[in-house]
């Protein structure tokens, strides 16, 4: 039964998930193409120096920063928007399952896909970094990159909440809340500067995972 739900979710998001993953790999590839080029043209030591002391962040460009956000947004839309067309979510709620559990399984599957893609991208990023950089540089780079991926999860959970919400007025209000909250994951800061905030950022991400239950409940109670 639950496998069947996963099957349905996969049918909805598969192409978007694959494109997101592929784009992630391309972006990381592009970063290290550039690193390799810079190593060739300015000396390696100077390049390290610029990272350590001049605030050069070799991975910092907007495509990489916002990729998890956009990827999560697209996957969440692909997954939840078809459920709201003609209120199709009724079909899911009518399945012989507990409604909240059904929503949670949908959410877990989407979050798992995001996690898998994030893992692939981060792993590739780390492995390629190991060829060029010492642990100190890689560590602070990862600390800077992790909030962007956490942001992806938060955006995914909030998008689920907003898309499933039956009343347009509240969708707009939720969007405002998202607009106040999501930027805390996207502050511009020195490499590694996010380290003290990470534990709470992770906690918030985990807590928000159940957000969609709220709009699901409102739908089932007949808000419109």
């Amino acid at each position, binding site marked *: 039964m639950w496998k069947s739900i996963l099957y349905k979710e996969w049918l909805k998001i598969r192409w978007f998930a694959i494109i997101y993953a592929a784009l992630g790999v391309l972006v990381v590839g592009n970063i290290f193409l550039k690193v390799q080029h810079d190593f060739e043209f300015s*000396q*390696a*030591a*100077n*390049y*390290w*120096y610029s990272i*350590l*002391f001049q605030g050069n962040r070799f991975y910092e460009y907007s495509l990489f920063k916002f990729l998890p956000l956009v990827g999560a947004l697209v996957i969440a839309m692909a997954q939840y928007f078809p459920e709201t067309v003609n209120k199709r979510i009724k079909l899911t709620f009518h399945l012989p399952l507990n409604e*909240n559990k059904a929503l949670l399984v949908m959410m877990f599957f989407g979050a798992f896909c995001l996690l898998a893609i994030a893992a692939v991208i981060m792993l590739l990023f780390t492995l390629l970094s*190991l*060829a*060029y*950089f*010492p642990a*100190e*540089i890689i560590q*602070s780079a990862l600390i800077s990159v992790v*909030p962007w991926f956490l942001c992806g999860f938060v955006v995914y959970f909030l998008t689920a*909440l907003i898309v499933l919400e039956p009343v347009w007025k*509240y969708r707009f*209000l*939720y969007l*405002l*809340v998202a*607009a*106040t*909250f999501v930027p*805390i994951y996207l*502050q511009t*800061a*020195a*490499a*590694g*500067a*996010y*380290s*003290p*905030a990470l534990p*709470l950022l992770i906690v*918030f991400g985990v*807590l*928000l995972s*159940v*957000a*969609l*239950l*709220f709009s*699901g*409940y*409102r739908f089932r*109670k007949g*808000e419109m």
Partner: protein
Amino acid sequence: MVKFSRYILIFVAIIGLSILLPQFYRVAFEKSTRAPFIQYSCIDHDFMIFRSDADVKWTNSKGTKLTREVYEKKLPLMYTRQLVMNETMPDSINGQKINVQHTSTFRSTFRIKPDELHAPKPMLYPLFESQSGRANLEMPGNFFRITWRMEFIDAKTNNILEEKSRMFSAVLYKRGFKFPAKSINGIPTTRKSCDEGYLVIDSADQLFHIKMTKGVPFVRKVDLPEGMKFKTIQCVDFSDKLYYAYLFTENNELYVLTPYDYMLEKFDVDDINPDEYEIRIYGDYFNFNVITISNDFVRTQALNRDHNKVDEYMETRPTFEQQPEGKIAQFLFPAQLKMKDDNSSYVNFFLKISKSYSWLFTSLLLIVVQYFIIRQRKKKFRTEIIDLLIIGITGIFGFIAVNIFPNKFID
């Protein structure tokens, strides 16, 4: 579970709002206040004050209005070039003949802000050759870390240089260095007059001077008074070459470290807290001006060249909280959450709770408003108690949050 999800959403909204609303408010209403620039005059033996944002820009400590020209003449070692240009530079001050070239050697400027202290550290540093026989310093091709030993990593290959690492580690070990290093302080740039390596604190809070001369390690342990610990050590490269570094201790004292004899000399100043204050140290032929600037005061302690205090001057300035706009803010918002703080380069959750309790009044008012909203919705009062409690504690943030995520249907 649904109830739980609602409270999570309210919580998240409160966090978002407590960052954004006070920030909007500040952007809209905050007025800039610049700290006055307070310098000790070697002519008048009084403090000269420059306020860039006031109508009366130049005064002395008694408030006497000065012209710019007079002001600059009171600080001849600060505005030497201007006075020379105006041909008003005195030949002698305090009975001492002034040679402009000579006195300018003693001029030094230093400044540090808390956010430079509270910042991610690079952990890897280049060790320059301090006696290369070249006029200019050259960037080495490797960087070192001091963990369980001192390790040099070649940037080109990203591999550890075993031989060099062993050589330096052995010397450090012999000199009694306890690995790993707690802090590594130096001036890691080629754009300095010469290299003096690094001042390193080991895990036993001992201070070492480490440099490389002709490819060979130079390691010297610096004797410290019992129990002395440092908030930060700031290496300096001044033209008088009198000091290696300013050292700021845990109990807010200021020391300098002299070269060759490695003497720690105390500055006769107090409350030098780099964790919270911006600190500026201006040295000249006669005096040191040690300036501490915080949100609510500016203080200049004037020292002579023997590091003894000759005078001090302090001025308080109103913080945002003390200004009318700030008071209204404290009335509106129970707290302010920031992801970034003036005193830190880290991203974190910086919670500043309102010092006055005037926000409780707003909370009370909003509880009453919410009470009427509940009545209008014909909800049972009992089921809304937590919402009211949330509003009571978080004021306007909670009020907005519980109404964005209404308690309809959930009992």
